[in-house]
């Protein structure tokens, strides 16, 4: 026998690795459906399977822990069991020799502490307190609960207008979301257990690209109630649209000259063409929403006056205040916030960056947006400086890739120290090289590397380090503001102002379009309820029946982007929609969770809300 063998994976080892990778896939897509206690028990059992068996805490402790957790799940535990679970997990954590044991225990301790109420509910009721069954995972994952399997089936059937009408039952911004939705639904797509999640947004875009004219649904009889919506972004317009359909007379107050909020003043046209946005807004206003642009509540009209004049007020003012770096030189000419730049472009005022070198500070989607916008404004060179690593950037991977593909340079692990200016004008930015370090609250923190600062010569600095909410005026008129956000109850109402509701970015902090839509939808329902009505938004579209299909592994079709030959001045849409053949194949990948699995119980869908 040789003394040293060349390591080759055994067949069993390869299989184990395969199972691990499927496990990973499976866990990722089913996160919404699990019982916290059952999940903890399953985790402990899996961790126990990884034990080498040398040490007491891991070998025996994890097995006993699994049994204790099963007792909770079987309704045979009492509060003493819970205490023993916690003590056992603690002890394993403190005394295990290696990470196999102590990391498993750390997760268990975290779970027992974080899910105390769930554990207690199981013990007291032999039942699970969590009410999210996530029968149809994509729908459960969509903040606005859009009937995704329904519109995919309609798209597959070539009934594009019906597909869009179905989307708009829950989310009136079908075109916009087809272009720019963050698509949290895809995270939970059960197809991910088989091969890859569906390209849900791609199919939505395909439907909106190919639909015939879609009329808004009929509106309810006039209720005699009037609602003022403050802020014409996605939350405000969604609320206004549904409130109008419910028969309420609705007026939108918008401080900018045009409607759309961050959809217009935050998202560049090459991602969301203005014609698309305008046509969607026209659809939203069609049921008779009145609009007052260029009117700022707090300046042109007071909240008190609105409350006097209207039966309810919805505050959806968004998060448009820019965060600043707070470093020397920030006042120099040539330093500009991302908010400022995107807002002026939204109003069709495009600055000329011809031959300029631009440094963008930040790593979010907005940073990518302004970087790519700078190229289109003629910039010769764009550098994106970010203090963490590229993989820590909050921007979506596709956005980062596109920025790089278009020629932006990424300078990761560089934190701004000061802005260099000559004669009051920016001439560079001084950056301190960083190294990535400890993880706190789940995020890797950078710290100064033992290296000298570098200066990147540039003519312009674009600051894209997040937005905040302009709450000062609201706070002064009695709106409760906490940690820079408006405090609204779960039903969007404000505690101390009867008839005033709030939602969207101004409540959640800067978030996504679909979350703003969901907020607007909830507000419409709750304002209608506040008036004492129960108007239903409903749609009578027959969904094509789900047919049983053979299981064929098939990869996902992505939408590509094209890099225009000459970026300067070119704000045309860069993302390519799916080809018809791709859309047909992609829609056929849908597992129809509205019919197969728990979805079939209770009909697979909510017909109205």
């Amino acid at each position, binding site marked *: 026998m040789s003394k040293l063998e060349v390591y080759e994976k055994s067949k069993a080892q390869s299989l184990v690795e395969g199972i691990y990778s499927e496990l990973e896939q499976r866990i990722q897509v089913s996160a919404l459906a699990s019982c916290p206690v059952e999940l903890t028990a399953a985790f402990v059992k899996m961790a126990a399977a990884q034990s080498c068996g040398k040490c007491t805490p891991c070998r025996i402790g994890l097995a006993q822990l699994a049994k204790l957790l099963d007792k909770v*799940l*079987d309704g045979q535990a009492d509060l003493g069991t819970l205490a023993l679970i916690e003590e056992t997990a603690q002890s394993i954590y403190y005394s295990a020799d290696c990470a196999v044991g102590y990391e498993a225990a750390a997760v268990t301790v975290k779970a027992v502490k974080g899910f105390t109420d769930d554990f207690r*509910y199981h013990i007291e009721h*032999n*039942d*699970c307190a969590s009410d999210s*069954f996530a029968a149809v995972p994509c729908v459960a994952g969509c903040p606005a609960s859009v009937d995704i399997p329904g519109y995919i089936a309609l798209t597959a059937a070539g009934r594009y207008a019906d597909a869009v009408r179905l989307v708009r039952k829950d989310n009136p911004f079908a075109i916009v979301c087809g272009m720019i939705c963050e698509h949290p639904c895809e995270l939970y797509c059960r197809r991910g257990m088989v091969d890859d999640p569906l390209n849900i947004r791609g199919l939505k875009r395909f439907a909106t690209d190919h639909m015939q004219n879609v009329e808004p649904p009929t509106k309810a009889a006039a209720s005699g109630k009037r609602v003022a919506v403050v802020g014409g972004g996605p939350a405000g317009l969604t609320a206004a649209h549904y409130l109008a359909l419910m028969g309420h007379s609705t007026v939108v107050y918008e401080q900018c000259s045009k409607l759309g909020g961050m959809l217009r003043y935050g998202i560049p046209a090459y991602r969301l063409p203005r014609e698309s946005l305008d046509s969607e807004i026209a659809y939203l206003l069609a049921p008779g929403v009145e609009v007052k642009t260029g009117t700022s509540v707090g300046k042109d009209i007071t909240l008190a006056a609105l409350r006097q004049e209207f039966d309810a007020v919805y505050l959806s003012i968004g998060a448009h205040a820019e965060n600043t770096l707070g470093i020397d030189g920030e006042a120099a000419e040539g330093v500009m916030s991302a908010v400022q730049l995107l807002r002026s472009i939204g109003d069709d005022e495009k600055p000329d960056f011809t031959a300029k070198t631009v440094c963008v500070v930040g790593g979010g989607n907005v940073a990518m947006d302004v970087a790519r916008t700078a190229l289109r404004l003629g910039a010769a060179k764009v550098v994106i400086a970010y203090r963490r690593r590229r993989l820590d950037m909050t921007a979506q991977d596709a956005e980062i890739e596109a920025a790089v593909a278009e020629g932006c340079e990424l300078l990761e692990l560089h934190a701004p120290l000061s802005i260099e200016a000559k004669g009051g004008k920016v001439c560079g930015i001084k950056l301190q090289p960083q190294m990535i370090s400890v993880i706190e609250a789940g995020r890797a923190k950078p710290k100064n590397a033992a290296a000298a600062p570098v200066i990147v010569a540039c003519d312009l600095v674009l600051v894209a380090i997040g937005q905040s909410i302009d709450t000062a005026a609201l706070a002064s008129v009695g709106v409760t503001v906490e940690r820079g956000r408006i405090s609204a109850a779960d039903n969007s109402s404000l505690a101390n102002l009867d008839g005033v509701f709030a939602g969207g970015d101004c409540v959640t902090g800067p978030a996504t379009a679909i979350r703003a839509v969901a907020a607007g939808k909830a507000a419409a329902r709750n304002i209608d309820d506040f008036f004492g009505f129960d108007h239903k938004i409903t749609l009578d579209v027959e969904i094509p*029946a789900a047919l*049983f299909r053979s299981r064929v592994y098939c990869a996902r079709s992505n939408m590509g982007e094209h890099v225009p030959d000459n970026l300067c001045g070119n704000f045309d849409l860069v993302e390519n929609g799916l080809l018809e053949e791709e859309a047909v194949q992609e829609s056929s990948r849908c597992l129809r969770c509205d019919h197969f699995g728990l979805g*079939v119980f209770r009909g697979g869908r909510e017909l109205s809300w």
Partner: protein
Amino acid sequence: MVKQDTSFLTGSTDASSSGAQVNLTINGIAVSAYRNMTILAAANKAGIKIPTLCFFWNLNDIGSCRVCAVEVDGFEQLVSACNNLVQDGMVIQTNSAKARQARRLNVELLLSQHDVQCSSCVRGGNCELRQLANDLNIIDVRFEKQTESFDWPEDYPLIREASKCIKCLRCIQICDNIQASHIWDLRNRATRSSVGVRDATPIKSSLCAVCGQCINHCPVGALRERDDTDRVLAAINDPEKITVVQVAPSVRTSWYEDFGLTFDAAKPQRLVAALRQVGFNYIFDTDFSADLTIMEEGSELLARVGAADKHPWPMFTSCCPGWVRWLKGHHPEMIDNLSTAKSPQQMFGAVTKSYYADVLGVDPKRIFSVSIMPCLAKKHECAIPNMNDACGDPDVDIALTVREMNRLIRSTFIDVPGLVDEEFDSPLGIGTGAGEIFGATGGVMEAALRSAYFLATGSNPDPDAFADVRGLQGWKEATFDLNGAPVRVAIASGLGNAEKLIAAIKAGEVHYDFVEIMACPGGCIAGGGQPIPGKLNFRTTRSNVLYGLDQQNQYRFSHENPSITKVYSEYFGAPLSERSHHLLHTNHRLWSMPNEDEQ
């Protein structure tokens, strides 16, 4: 009125017989079907049996048991026949090796979690799981037994034994979709998923109407009524007790099914003979007090019309205790719309322990009053604390379901086919055709209209003049002319239909004067205490029995029942008299549903 789907009520199995035709092959037989038909429906139409378990026509097609899995050429995996549509050119094998193996294994798995107590289970004789396991020739279950533990109040009329539940979820479906009660829900998760009361509410604190429809749709013995037969036998065997039993109209439409008989072979008189053999002293007909109800409720309606602004409208019937419970639970603001008339069961009990005790010349406390009801909620109703108006004891001591009565008869080893028919005892054994039809949806309304017409005009209408209110639609409406005054009536059966009707009343979309509601879909003939139906169209068969009896009865108007005339002249005086109020009417606010306690 809203658009109605009557397929559940009629038990239709071809609701999807429309649209394009497709051709397929099942077990080598060419079958043509409609494109929107399931494989099961297509096979059913072609006379090919595919076994099912969780499936129930027009109610539950969730495909959870995977017993109806069939093999389709070109598909690696099996397809559940109950909820997958036919496709043109499909070649299906219902008994391929793969299908047989999976079907058998899935039933073995269900048996591993089922507390198999067939010999001491109320459903031992008609359990769908037992039949299926037997048909599949399962002799050995290869899996370890693991049944769910549970804790359930034994004194509640509805009993759930979780250890027998096979999680078909039919109970949730009927409670949600047909009965609008939403008592049952999926509870717990993953491998411990089960059925329980929504939000883990104790059943006694829930708004359960006790309609019992979940029992009738349970394939196994996980749901049943509280068995009160021992208490009845104890009274029969107690020499101090005089046992009086009343038999509800709809009992005669169904009781014989459990004995494998037909109506022609088992008329009501056969039931009287059987109950006599069981040992009851007096056997009476609830038809009598149905007629009494018409007298009181009809007079109340006319009295309310006379003081229209003092009463909320429409007036609701009050004879169905499941409906009364549901209304109090779900729409407590409409309690005063209910007629104050007691139900026929309770009127009967009150008359028995007052008037009839006088007739017999006995202390009413010696009378043990039993009712045979198609109903579960009657167990709740007779136990309402203030239903003791005659002598202070409960007016009705025990309400038995038809199933319990049949178990009582069977346990006495009576040869039902060999019995000689007997008549009901007199005077409380005489009922009219109007009383008979109480057991079918629309029957109370029709009976009331026949007598109201007489009261309004002084002459009898054609007894079939109001036949428009018959039939198995969930929500019916009609307007009749009573001596120049139009009376707008509506009838709903099934609490889901009641919910729709009430929503329409509240929205001002419909306006009625008098509304009959029966909690169970189709009325008492399909009550939650009836024998578990063997056939889907049982509602039609059973209601035909009642309308046939009505046609044959020499009396077709409640006001012409000689016993009614007698009891009014000898005891009550007139409808709505002081004595009537005391014994025959009730205040629905004297007891509370859990939601009312909170107010």
